Every structure is written in structure tokens, then in C-alpha cells.
């Protein structure tokens, strides 16, 4: 369903989804639920090379190009982190490298998860976004060459 939506529409969908919850507990429970739908990284890619640096929990993120779009898979050993990476994957998955590179990250703030964006070393949300954008950049560079 989400594949037919634009990136911005998916972001809005998430904002609306989270707006339904008035208290932190429901919001976090929903985030944890989202983590269960995350397209899991294949065991052979669950390696130290694919660890996102800057997270207190471990996050593995892998991407491959498929007919001009980027496909992400990921995993984490912490449930909240897994929810966060799932949220990002839902937004950025199956997009063109250009869409990913140009996407704004304001929606995180509007979902009420702003604290995960702080420069605190313990959490790695910005590191995850950086990593996704780096993948996009690498694939667009490759695309230009071919």
C-alpha cells in the first residue's frame, strides 16, 4: 500500500498515526509494534561491517539497489531502536536515491520522538539517517556511471 504513496505522504501517514496516541506509553507501544514489521536483514549481512556507528544498541542496516530504487533491510537488538529503524525504513524504502537524499527529516520531530534526534551519543537516529543517505548517494553515483 505504501509503495503507491510518495515519501512525503508516508511521512504524513506516520505523523497521523502517532497523533492518535495521547500518552507516551501508547506511542512507545506503537513504535515497538512497528519494529515487528521491519524487513529483517539477511543473516549474511548481519555483520559488523553493516553496524551503524553511534548507537548504544546495535543496529544493522543494509541496502541494495533494485530497478532504480533502494531497498533497505535492518535489525536491532533493542526493541525501541528496532521500531525507530522500522519507521525510517517505512519512509525511505523503495524510493529512488534522489528522493532519499532530498527527503526532510522533520517528521521525526512531529511524531514526538524528538529526543531520539539529540546529539546524545547514546542514540543513533541521526546516524541511521546519515547511513541511509550515504547508501542513496553511493547508488546514485553508481547509477550515473552505468
Amino acid at each position, binding site marked *: 500500500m505504501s509503495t503507491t504513496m510518495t515519501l512525503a505522504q508516508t511521512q504524513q501517514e506516520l505523523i497521523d498515526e502517532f497523533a492518535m496516541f495521547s500518552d*507516551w*506509553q501508547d506511542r*512507545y*507501544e506503537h513504535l*515497538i509494534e512497528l519494529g515487528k514489521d521491519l524487513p529483517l536483514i539477511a543473516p549474511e549481512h548481519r555483520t559488523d561491517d553493516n553496524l551503524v556507528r553511534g548507537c*548504544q*544498541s*546495535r543496529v544493522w542496516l543494509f541496502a541494495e539497489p533494485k530497478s532504480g530504487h533502494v531497498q533497505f533491510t535492518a535489525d536491532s*537488538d*533493542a*526493541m*525501541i*531502536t528496532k521500531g525507530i529503524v522500522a519507521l525510517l525504513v517505512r519512509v525511505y524504502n523503495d524510493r529512488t536515491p534522489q528522493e532519499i537524499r532530498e527527503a526532510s527529516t522533520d517528521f521525526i520531530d512531529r511524531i514526538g520522538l524528538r*529526543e531520539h534526534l539529540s546529539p546524545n551519543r*547514546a*542514540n543513533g537516529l541521526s546516524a541511521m539517517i546519515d547511513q541511509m543517505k550515504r547508501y542513496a548517494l553511493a547508488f546514485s553515483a553508481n547509477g550515473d556511471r552505468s
Partner: protein
Amino acid sequence: MKTKDAPVTKAYDVERIRAQFPILRELVHGKPLVYFDNAATSQKPRRVIKTESAYYATINANVHRGVHTLSTRATEAQEAAREIVRRHINAQHAHEVIFTSGTTASINLAATSLGQLLLRKGDEVVISGMEHHSNIVPWQLACERYGAKLKVIPITDSGEWETGPQGRKDAKGSTEQFFNERTRILAISHVSNTLGTINPVKKLIAQAKKQGIITVVDGAQAIAHLDVDVQDLDCDLYAFSGHKAYAPTGTGVLYGREELLERMPPWQGGGEMIETVTLEKSTWAKLPFKFEAGTPHIAGIIGLGEALRWMEDYDFAFAKDSAEQGKSAFAAHEHMLLERATKELLTIDGLRIIGTAKEKVGVISFVIEDVHHYDIGTLLDQQGIAVRTGHHCTQPLMDRFGVSGTTRASFACFNTCAEVDALVAGVKKTLKMLR
């Protein structure tokens, strides 16, 4: 005899203590703050905050340089703080107290200077497996520089030094196997920041001394909880931070025995630490200034003096009542919180406490089967409860216990039983969400 301010009740009046910490009125995510991250940094009583701000409002000037009145006031206030520190840790001389920016700076000073003075190729430095990175890395750097070797006292399952042969503590708790004729320095923590273990430093120092080994104690986690007496410990150097003992951040102390400090070369060069400077060669100022290059954190240092006085006023004022427990009032209160937290947390399915030594300060580190500490910390924060999660800058210790990190609650004089109960309820609520 009793002044109006002096506590008169026999029971520990925690509300009276709490009233002095403005930050405890803060709300976090709309809930009253429960601050259990005191091992990272303690909160500050109003007296300390006022002292620091009054410095800028009425005294501010550079120390030891100006002939003008403010400079004299600043110098006197800073040197008065040095005398308070001296008295608090029972050093023989005030000039044995060197002000630094914190324990990390103190140990770096010690390792750099002692390294230059003592370490030659093939020499050995002994640390323990429960050290904070701040008491590992500076020694690794020094060892690397002089071709010396770092030896590590292993840690038992309960989180204590393994000081006997063949992985068991012998009857005498002998540690001599770690010391040999090449051992030059012993650098150990008084209290473990991750486990809370109070280490038998005095005994180990005595053994080291017999062999002429220089002893350095990392007292970062001890200063706010134990009665630190450097002459009784008989250590050569003792490092601690102000900010873990109710004082401003950016303050620390390196105590050193006079005779050793005289022999140690300076660490940083600059203003204040010299006697004469020509372009060819400089000579060093007297102790403690030889080790205090540059303008110090004057406001913070004065705040540190006030924090120690504040502790003495409250801690020792209550002390007589709890003397039968052999602890200061703060320590007895924190121990009570520790016992309550330990008992209640252990009722939680799958919870394991890391660090079960008999002698502990109010630090409780735990892991829960199949649950990540990051999730616990994040969800506790949503409930207004501040704990520390992660490896606590003790990665080798995490490896020793086979965990990637723990959740740590660390108590201070102002914490309450109700807060401990909130933590336990908070963990249970968190688990309900995660499981």
C-alpha cells in the same frame, strides 16, 4: 550548643536534605524527577550554586597575579577551598592538593608525570579489571610510551578483586603474585563506578608499599560516599572529581604526597606554574602551582570547597546517630536504599544484578534476560526516572561479565524509599511493554 540550623531528629531527615536541591523540583516528561544517575554526576545543593554565582557577582578576578583587591579576594577564596579539601581528605599539607578539571585530568597528570619519572622498558604497571576507562587509557598511553607492561588484577563473579593464586582468593588474600621487581605503579579504584564495590585499597596499598611501588587511587566514586583519609590509606596519589560530590562540574583534585610531588615533573606548561622563564630554560614554581598551569576554574573550586563544607555540615551532623553502623549518615541512608532496591529488583523475573560484593556503595547495576538496557533506560526516562545505561566506560568489565551493558541506578543523600519503589514499579511497567 545546638544551633537553630543543626538537625535535632535522630532519624535521617531526607526531606530536609531534598529541600536544598532546587533541581529536584523539576518535572521530566511531566513527572517528578527521580534522579538515580549520581555516579555520573551528583546534583548540587543551593549553597553550592549560590557560592559559585556569588563569586562572579562579587569576587571575580584572576588568582595569584594581581595586586588589586579583587585578585586578593579571589586568591584567598581559592586557597581557603584548598584548605577545606586538605582537611576533608586529611592530607598533611594544603600544597599536596592540586586542583584539576576532574578525575580524568588528575589521572592523566599522574600517568604522564609518573611515567616520565618512573617507567623504563620492561617495567610494569598494575591496574584492576574493574577500572573506568579513565584509569586504564592514561596508563596504556604511558606504558606504550616507555615500553612498559600493563598487568590486570582479574575480577571475581561477585565483582571483587581476584587477589589470590589460581583463580581463588587464598586465606590471606595475597596479591603479591601481581607485584614483582619490575612493578613500578599500582593504579586502582577505591569504589567501582559500575559495580559499586568498595575495594580493600588500604590492604593492597600496604602490600605495594613493602615493595616500593607507587600507589595511585581513583577515588571518583568514593569521595561522596566514604570517609576518605589519604594518610590512613597511605596512598601516594589520590584522584577525585568535585562534580560527583555535590560540587560544580569541571573541578577535580589530585592529592599527592609532598615528597613524591616534588620529584614529579610538571605535566602542562604555561602561566602560574613557573618560577622563572628564559627562552632557554624555565624553573618551576613551588607546589602545588607547579602542576596548575593556566587560569584555574576559580568559581568551581570555591564551589567545591562549599560542597565539602556542606557535606560535612549535614553528613557529620547526623553521624553520631548512625555511628553504630560504622557509617556516615549519608552512607547509611544510601546503604538502606541499596538494600531495598536490591531486594525488590530481585523479585523481577529474569533480572540479574552485576556486582554483588559484600561491601558496596549505593550503586546497583542490573541486566534483564532478553531485554536491552537501552529500552529500559528510554522507557524509565519517559516515567521521569533517570538511570544510566550502557557500558559505563568500563568495557573490559562488561566483557568480563559477558554483557554489552547494564542499567545502573546510583543513589545519593537526597534519594528516598518512595523513589526506589518508583524505580521498581517503573522497571515492571517497562517489562510489561517490552515482553
